[in-house]
Every structure is written in structure tokens, then in C-alpha cells.
């Protein structure tokens, strides 16, 4: 009893109490508000859009123009849709650091909330592809792996390679590997056609077909090595390299041993 009354009179009591109170209120509020993230009120939406606008003006307008109209170094963002922004900003491609060949995937500098705000802002200026929600991304339920494989080989393998390992385009551009990419981003890339990638409209590749493609890619990711080390899954080039290094190396090594006189 005496200890507690002594503590109450200590100098740090008040500031400590303040910190505890703030912490408690803050966590309670965020826990309470998190569950309603997708159901923003009108006010919350317009707050999000205006937050997005502020972020845009600060971090994107120097290249994409004050009104998203684009400049000589960056395209217009009018009508690109929330999906584009979610993809580009969410994978860290935007803001673009190295302007030489293409935007590279890197650590995003905007967190999920800021990305959503940017997306909402861009979508508010002109209609465009929307961010797919979770029920639209249930590839396990709605996709078919074998169909996805056929679709992949017809529409994607020529850039991304038969095993989705990525491939070269012209002038130093490349189609990146799809291993380890979130299903949402794969879907968004298909509907928005980032940079060199074309758009795959929902009528030519239906949403169900897109999910089949994603299911196939996810299966390929988990595909175990049936025959041993995969050697990069790029085909005969690495196989030939292995023969000339490990294969001939071992054989010539044994040949030298064979012809050397024993002690």
C-alpha cells in the first residue's frame, strides 16, 4: 500500500499515465476501425481521396502531372483505375527510381493505407479497372489448373517463359518472374497491362480464366523437383552449361587420375 501511494507521487506518474491512456485509446480505436476497413462512410472515402490527392501531389505529380495528365517522362494516369495504382505502388515499382529501362519491383515506400488512398484518388478522377476483392480472387475454388496451363502457354509463356521464370523483351526490357507474386498483383497486371505488358480484357480472358492462370502459376511455384535440381527452369542453355562444367570436369578429372602413375 505504501509502495503504490509512493508511486502515485513520483514525478513520472503523470506523463506515464498520459502515455498509457493514449496507447489504450489508440489501439482500441484502430482495432475498432480495422474491422470496417472496406466499408468506409462517404466522409471516410472523401477523406481517403483527399489524402490520396495530397500524397499524389507530393510524390507523383512531378512526373505524372498535377492533374494526372502526364508529362514527357511519364504517361497520363487518367482512367488507369485503382487496380493500376495498387499494382504499381503496392509492388514498389512506383515511384520509379531508375528511369533507364523499366520500373523494377522493389520495396514499396507507401504503406497499405497510403496505397489505398492513392488508388482511391486516381480512381475518383476517371473510371478504370477496380482492385479485385478477396472473393474475386478465390482461385482455389474457381480456377482449373489444366485450363490455366493452356491459357498460360498461349498468352503468357512467350514473355514470361514456360515455367513463369521470366524472359527478355527488346532493348533491355524484361518480363519478370512470376514466382512469389501475390495473386492480387497477377490479376491486376493482367487487367491493367503495366508498361510493356498488354492488357488482357475480361472478355478475351474471362475472370474465371484469369483465376485458372493464377491457380496454375501458384501450382508451378509449389511444383517439386521431380528429376533433381531444376537448373533455373530455362531449358537447354543451363543443361549444356552443366555438361561442360560438372560433366566433363568430373570425367576429365577421373581420366587424369587414371593415367597418373600410382605411388
Amino acid at each position, binding site marked *: 500500500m505504501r509502495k503504490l501511494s509512493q508511486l502515485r507521487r513520483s514525478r513520472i506518474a503523470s506523463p506515464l499515465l498520459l502515455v498509457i491512456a493514449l496507447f489504450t485509446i489508440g489501439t482500441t480505436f484502430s482495432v475498432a476501425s480495422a474491422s470496417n476497413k472496406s466499408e468506409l462512410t462517404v466522409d471516410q472515402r472523401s477523406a481517403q481521396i483527399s489524402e490520396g490527392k495530397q500524397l499524389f501531389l507530393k510524390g507523383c505529380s512531378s512526373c505524372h502531372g498535377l492533374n494526372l495528365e502526364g508529362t514527357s517522362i511519364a504517361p497520363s494516369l487518367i482512367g488507369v483505375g485503382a487496380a493500376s495504382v495498387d499494382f504499381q505502388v503496392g509492388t514498389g515499382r512506383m515511384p520509379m527510381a531508375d528511369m533507364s529501362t523499366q520500373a523494377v519491383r522493389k520495396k514499396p515506400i507507401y504503406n497499405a493505407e497510403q496505397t489505398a488512398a492513392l488508388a482511391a484518388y486516381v480512381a475518383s478522377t476517371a473510371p478504370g479497372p477496380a482492385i479485385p476483392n478477396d472473393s474475386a480472387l478465390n482461385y482455389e475454388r474457381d480456377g482449373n489448373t489444366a485450363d490455366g496451363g493452356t491459357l498460360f502457354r498461349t498468352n503468357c509463356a512467350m514473355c514470361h517463359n514456360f515455367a513463369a521464370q521470366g524472359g527478355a523483351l527488346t532493348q533491355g526490357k524484361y518480363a519478370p518472374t512470376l514466382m512469389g507474386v501475390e495473386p492480387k498483383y497477377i490479376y491486376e497486371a493482367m487487367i491493367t497491362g503495366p508498361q510493356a505488358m498488354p492488357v488482357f480484357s475480361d472478355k478475351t480472358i474471362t475472370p474465371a480464366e484469369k483465376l485458372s492462370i493464377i491457380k496454375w502459376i501458384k501450382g508451378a511455384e509449389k511444383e517439386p523437383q*521431380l528429376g*533433381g535440381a531444376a537448373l533455373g527452369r530455362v531449358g537447354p542453355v543451363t543443361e549444356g552449361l552443366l555438361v561442360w562444367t560438372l560433366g566433363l570436369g568430373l570425367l576429365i578429372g577421373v581420366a587424369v587420375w587414371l593415367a597418373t602413375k600410382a605411388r
Partner: protein
Amino acid sequence: MTARERVAGTVANYVDERTGAAKWAKKNLTKVFPDHWSFLLGEVALYSFIILLLSGTFLTFWFDPSQREVLYEGGYQPLEGLHMSAAYASTLHISFEVRGGLLMRQIHHWAALIFMAAIVVHLMRVYFTGAFRKPREFNWIIGVGLLTLGIVEGFLGYSLPDDLLSGTGIRIAEAIIQALPVVGTYIAFFAFGGAFPGEAFIPRIFTVHVLLLPGIFLALITAHLMLVWYQKHTQWPGPGRTEKNVVGYPLMPAYMAKAGGFFFIVFGVTAFLGAVASINPIWLYGPYNPGQISAGSQPDWYMGWLDGLVRMSPPLETHLLGHTISWNILIPGLIVPGILFTGMALYPFIESWITGDKREHHLLDRPRNVPNRTALGAMSLTFMLVALINGGNDIIANNFHLGINQIMWFSRISIFVLPPIAFVVTKRICLSLQRADRELVLHGRETGRLMMLPHGEFVEVHEPISPELAWKLTAHEQAPALALEETDSRGVRRAGGLKNKLRKRISQANAENIAKPTVEDLKAIEHH
């Protein structure tokens, strides 16, 4: 006599009474074989061929060489319910359901890659040491034939499963056939039984791959080995070795044991690769569809140089009088390879024309002592390497963050610029090595010990080299250039003037060497 000796005697008697084998066996069991690791490269190729026969036969027990369409219900989820050819489906069956099937497929394909690599390094050894000279020109031509047929056989082999990658290769092969002037479309339609892809090609190449070419291989390899056996293997120069003898180990028991053991080594290494390294995973490529393609499509490595040449070709085509000739296909696909391989086959005769040397040779050349031949070889290898690298330009671009366009331009220029540079650099290196050998003979080996002379000068102590090494460094001959007179004694110009002029010029360049130490040089040194 022990029981075992009695039994052996009875068997030997039985066989000899019917074949007279004892005489032949007696002579050949004591045959002498020179022993050097570089003589085992051809053996790697030979043993790989046997491995291909064994593993290939296994595969034919399950493979269905038919292009008729089947529905896949085999259990590999990503291909479930798809239509594919029976060839592809049976290859999936071998890979997934037949126990040991995938291992055998992989051993077969790795053995094929090793077979071709071994042929190439064996060819390089024979070339750089001059083992193709008389009396071995026939064997050289058979070897070039084996190399060419090996490329075809390998291509047909990996095309059998009818997957997306190899089907693309067949499409390209069909385009080459189709591009032949006058007869191209007819030959293509006959080969494919109609338009591409048709249903006749895979069954037909199965027969070629499994019956016709292996038969030809067996005949050529037998002839190749018989010539080596009868002419006796060449040997490196050295103490006790002359053009008239062969120094080594007798067939029985040492050579037999080593050569036989090496077969198991080659098989073991191939099986090891088949165990730990995935090759030709056709289930990932998918069945062939002419409307599909993968980024980074290449043929197997031994055809990579052809692909590279085709990629770097300028877009040349002539359209004349209602006909088209595709130089962009014919030049890199047929004409340049034809010139290269013909030149390679005829090289022994070209070299003997330059040197005028018509004697038998059984002692090998040290590459440094034949700088022109070595430099020419380096030049050819550089050409092939640039072409090979260009064949993989998209894989290189993607992995090293380069651009395919830039790599292509680099290749287009390098293929003309780098080979002559390689020639000059290699020749200079050979001459420098000759100079170093000469120094070694004249002045001995540098010991790294310093000695102070009475008048204060520091010199490095040199140790004379052993007589064996001195012999090895000077045993080679240095033939002078051909002296071909352009006019005879009365000043009349000789027939074949231009040819002789060319021959003399090349012969002079060929004879450029650092002179071996003469007796005078050695005597002069003694006074030091």
C-alpha cells in the same frame, strides 16, 4: 592343373577348334596402348554411345511414337484432361508412372549431351596434336561424319516427345527445308506427310533415330576403332618414343582393366547427373501447339551455334521472277555450316598441301610447335563460341540485365572481328612458348637462388634441365617453308602459278617458328 585351369582349357579348345581364335588372341592380348589422359576423351564418347543404346532401348519399351491425339488422364494435375499426342502422353507415363523411367530418360539425355561434348573435346585433341595426319586421314573424316550425324541424331531424339520446346525446333527445321530453292516445299511435304505439323513426322524420325542412324553409327564407330587398332594409337613425343615404336601398356591386364573401368566411370557419372539434375522436363513445357511459344526457346547446346548464326543473320531475301530465296535462312543454316564442316573434313589434305609433307606421322605435335595450326584452331573455336553465345542471348540478357539488341550487335561484329584477333594472339603465344622452351634448353631452369660473383655482380643460379626434358623440348622437327619455283631454270613460267604462289605464301607463314637450339648455340652456352 587345377580344376579351374582344366575347365578353361576345355572351353578354349572348343572355341579355337571352330574359330582359330587363339592365334588372333595371342597377338592382340599383348597389343601396346600408349597411356595419356587426353587419349581417354574418345573413350568417353564411345562409352556414352553404349549408354545411349542401353538407356534408349529401355525407353522404346514404353514410348509410343505416334502423333494421334489422346486425352490425358494420367494423374499429373496441370495437364489433366488435355488433348495431346500419344508420343507426349507416353513420355509423361515414362516420367511419372514407370519406376526408373524418369531416371532413364534423364540418363539418356545427359548421355547424349556428354556424347557430343566428348566428341568435340576429342576432336580438339586430335586437331591440336596433329593426329589427323597420314595415315589417319580416313579416321578424321569418319570422325567429322560422326560429329555431324550426332548433331542430327540428338535433334531427332529430343524432338520425339513432341513437347512445346522441341516442337518449335521442328517448326524451324521445317522452315529450313522449305526454304531450299526449287525442291524445298516438295521435300518438306514429303518429310512431314503434308503440311506442318501433320501426323507423320514423329513416327518417321523415330525410325531414323532408333534404327537407321544407330546402325550407321555402329558401322562408322567400328570402322573408326578398327583403324585405330590396326594403325596403332599415336603417342606424345618423349624419351624412348620414336616414329617407329609405340610405348605403353599391354591390353591384358592393365589397359583392359583401366579402359573397362572407365566405362563404368562414364556410366556412373552420367547416372549421377541423371539422379541429381533435371533435364528436359517436358511436363513443364506442355504439349506442342503451333500457336504457342515460350520465351527463351533454344535447341540443345550442340545446335546452339546454328541458332546463334540464324539469330544474327541480316534480313536478306531475294524476290525474283515470282520466286523467293531466303538467304537469311540458307546462309546461316546451311551454307556457312556446310563450308565449315567441309573445310574441317578436308583439313588434313589442306595442311599436307601447305606443308608438302607426305610422310607417316605417329608422334604427336605439341601445339606450341605448330603455331599456325593451333592459331587456326583457336580462331575456329572463337567463331563457334560467339555463335553459341548468341544462341542464348535472351537467357543471357534476362539474367545479366543486358539487352538482346545490344548482344545481337555485339555478336554480329565480334564474329568477324574476334576470330582474327584470336588467331594473332594464339600464334604469338605459341611463339613465346617456343622461345621459353628454347631458353630452358639453353640456359636451364631458374632456381631462384642468387649468387654473387667475385666482381660484385649478382646472378641467378640456373640448373640444367634433365636429358629427358631436353629431349622432349627439342625432339620436334621444324620443316622449312616449301620452295616452289615460279619459273624454271630457263625463266619460263611454271603451270599452276597462282596456286603455287598461294601455297608458297601460306607455307612460309606456316613455317614461322622460333628456331630450336643448334649445336653452335649449345657450345656457345658452355662457355658461360
